[in-house]
């Protein structure tokens, strides 16, 4: 029984990281219909930024996790830069497929650029402790502080984001652009700026996800974002892409699937199950658990 509960906790912790990353995918996809393959690499950018900013934060007497602020800014800038330099010009000219290829190329570019920068290099770096070690013992189950913080921070960020998109002016503008760009333009919304804002927020979330990830696995390397990003994308699709609560639901489901296959079946088969679930969902209900199917207009 205690294994079961422990697995459940690990699953939810993992799921909350996936959910945070999935939010970034889902926001960008919702607004420009593009799978931003580079989003996983924004996590890497956040991770490396924190390698440098955590010592600074500690030196200033702040807690280690305060370093995430700087990382969020860097990630947001990288995200906006990606949109401005690569995605926007291609979107104007090419089709959906060319945009997708550009996104893959951007992901490749960021991963390899990081390796080529001397201060980063191809070798993994070890991150310092983010949250206090140890945890609370409840019976036979240990609840680590890292887990508690991860779940709380994720939940708070998600609620804030939901409030932002539903209740604020800019959030409404984002939903308008996602719904219908032409109509949004007619309503006086600056579509390009709104898209840029979406990239900034989505990428900023990636920095928070990087913090959570580092707290669990204190190892930072240049391709750390690709598999994590893929699984987060799977989560977004699973929940229904473009839908914020869907991304959270999808993230938790994928986290649970991964943690349960790892402890009850085989750790090396965990990825297979994650992608198998993606395939089953896509084939049976392509719009995801919470999405609606939309046909092509003839």
């Amino acid at each position, binding site marked *: 029984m205690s294994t079961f509960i422990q697995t459940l906790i690990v699953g939810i912790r993992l799921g909350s990281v996936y959910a945070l990353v999935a939010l970034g995918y889902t926001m960008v*996809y919702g607004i420009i*219909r*593009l*799978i931003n393959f580079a989003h996983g690499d924004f996590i890497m950018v956040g991770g490396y930024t924190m390698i440098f900013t955590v010592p600074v934060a500690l030196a200033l007497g702040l807690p280690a996790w305060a370093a995430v602020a700087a990382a969020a800014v860097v990630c947001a800038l990288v995200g906006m830069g990606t949109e401005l330099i*690569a995605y926007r*010009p*291609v979107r104007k*000219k*090419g*089709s*959906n*497929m*060319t945009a*997708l*290829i*550009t996104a*893959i*190329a*951007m992901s*490749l*570019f960021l*991963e*390899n*650029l990081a*390796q*080529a920068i*001397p201060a980063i290099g191809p070798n993994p770096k070890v991150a310092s402790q983010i949250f206090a070690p140890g945890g609370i013992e409840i019976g036979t189950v240990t609840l680590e502080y890292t887990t508690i913080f991860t779940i709380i921070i994720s939940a708070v960020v998600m609620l804030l984001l939901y409030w932002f998109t539903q209740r604020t002016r800019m959030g409404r503008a984002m939903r308008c652009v996602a719904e219908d760009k032409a109509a949004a333009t007619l309503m006086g919304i600056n579509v390009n700026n709104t898209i840029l804002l979406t990239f900034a927020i989505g990428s900023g979330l990636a920095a928070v996800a990087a913090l959570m990830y580092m707290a669990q696995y204190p190892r930072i390397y240049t*391709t750390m974002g*690709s*598999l994590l990003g*893929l699984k987060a*994308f*799977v989560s977004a*699709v699973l929940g229904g892409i473009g839908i914020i609560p869907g991304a959270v639901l999808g993230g938790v489901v994928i986290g649970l699937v991964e943690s349960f296959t790892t402890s009850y079946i*085989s750790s*090396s*088969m965990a*990825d*297979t199950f994650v*992608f*198998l679930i*993606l*395939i089953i969902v*896509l*084939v049976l209900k*392509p719009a995801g658990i919470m999405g609606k199917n939309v046909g*092509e207009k*003839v």
Partner: protein
Amino acid sequence: MKKLGRTGQGYLLNTIIIVLLFTAAQLVTAAFGGEGSFKLVLVPSIWQCCYLMILAASLNLVLGFLGQLSLGHCGFMAVGAYTAALLSLACERAELFKDKEGVVFILVLFACVLAAGILSALIGLLVGIPALRLKGDYLAIITLGFGMIIINIINNLPFCGQDGLALGSAAASLYKNGLGFGTKSKVEFLWAALLVTIISITLMFMFVRSKYGRAIRAIRDDEIAAAASGINTSYYKVLTFAYSAFFAGVAGALYSCTNATLSTSSFAFTNGGILNSTFIVVMVVLGGMGSITGSVAAAVIMFFINYQIKNGSWVDALPAAVQAVFQYPMLVYAIVLIVVIMFRPRGIFGSYEFSLINLKRDLKAALERRAAARSERKEARSNG
């Protein structure tokens, strides 16, 4: 004698040229076979080019002609590579051949290539039937998922092994027992690699220049109109996907010939090596989506650039910063890919097919177009 049309003449010319080149390659191999850089550099490079060409052309069928982005192409290549390797090891254990000699070995070699293709095509069918119900982004992600699953399953098969064939339970070096060729055998069997490549490229070319090619290009341009023109879209999509997987498998078989061991990490989507699915996409896009000859050319050019960046002596003469960038060639390819996509969304050659018999005509047309564009610009300028 029956009169040949222009197409017939073109085919005849191409056949003659290919036979001549093939014979020349044989003669050169016979003359320089045992020596120096020919044996150590050129021949292994040709082997690599061979599978890259087949791979790029086969992905182009799906990406350029059918217009669907598949990101799991390397999964099919892995299936082919492992099939060929395991089959050859099994044949050696059954003592069908020894020391890569004799007619039987040649038969085994071709049987392995064929088996690799067929198994990949079957898996392609299995993947394609559910996957091709989806379109665009969803298809890209589902094929990516299937690719990951294929790799993951191979990793978990007891007779394949996580650490590669040499360390798995097959426990035998491919060089020693199986298909894996050392440089000497690579020279000796160069003809086989060339033959497989020529046949594969020709078959793909015949495919796109027939009702099949017309049907899938129609689907690419407008799927609803294609269905309304009586084309069974699902059938042609799945068929093309399986056909493409077949040749990815053949390329995989050639790949296993050039390596001493196999490891699934070389086929993974998220990997910095030359073989990942992204690199193939780069080749296809550079060569032009919808041009088989473009893919072939791009594969050779990309291989050459990649080789030069890594091994060329001129690299040492460059400034240190450039050299540092060249350490990570994927960085360069990523930039090239983005720039090409920005300025020529359908690739450098677009859907233009290079053809010997029309070379003069096409060149002339291209020059005329350029001259026309120039005079137009001039006129625009003089008009203010």
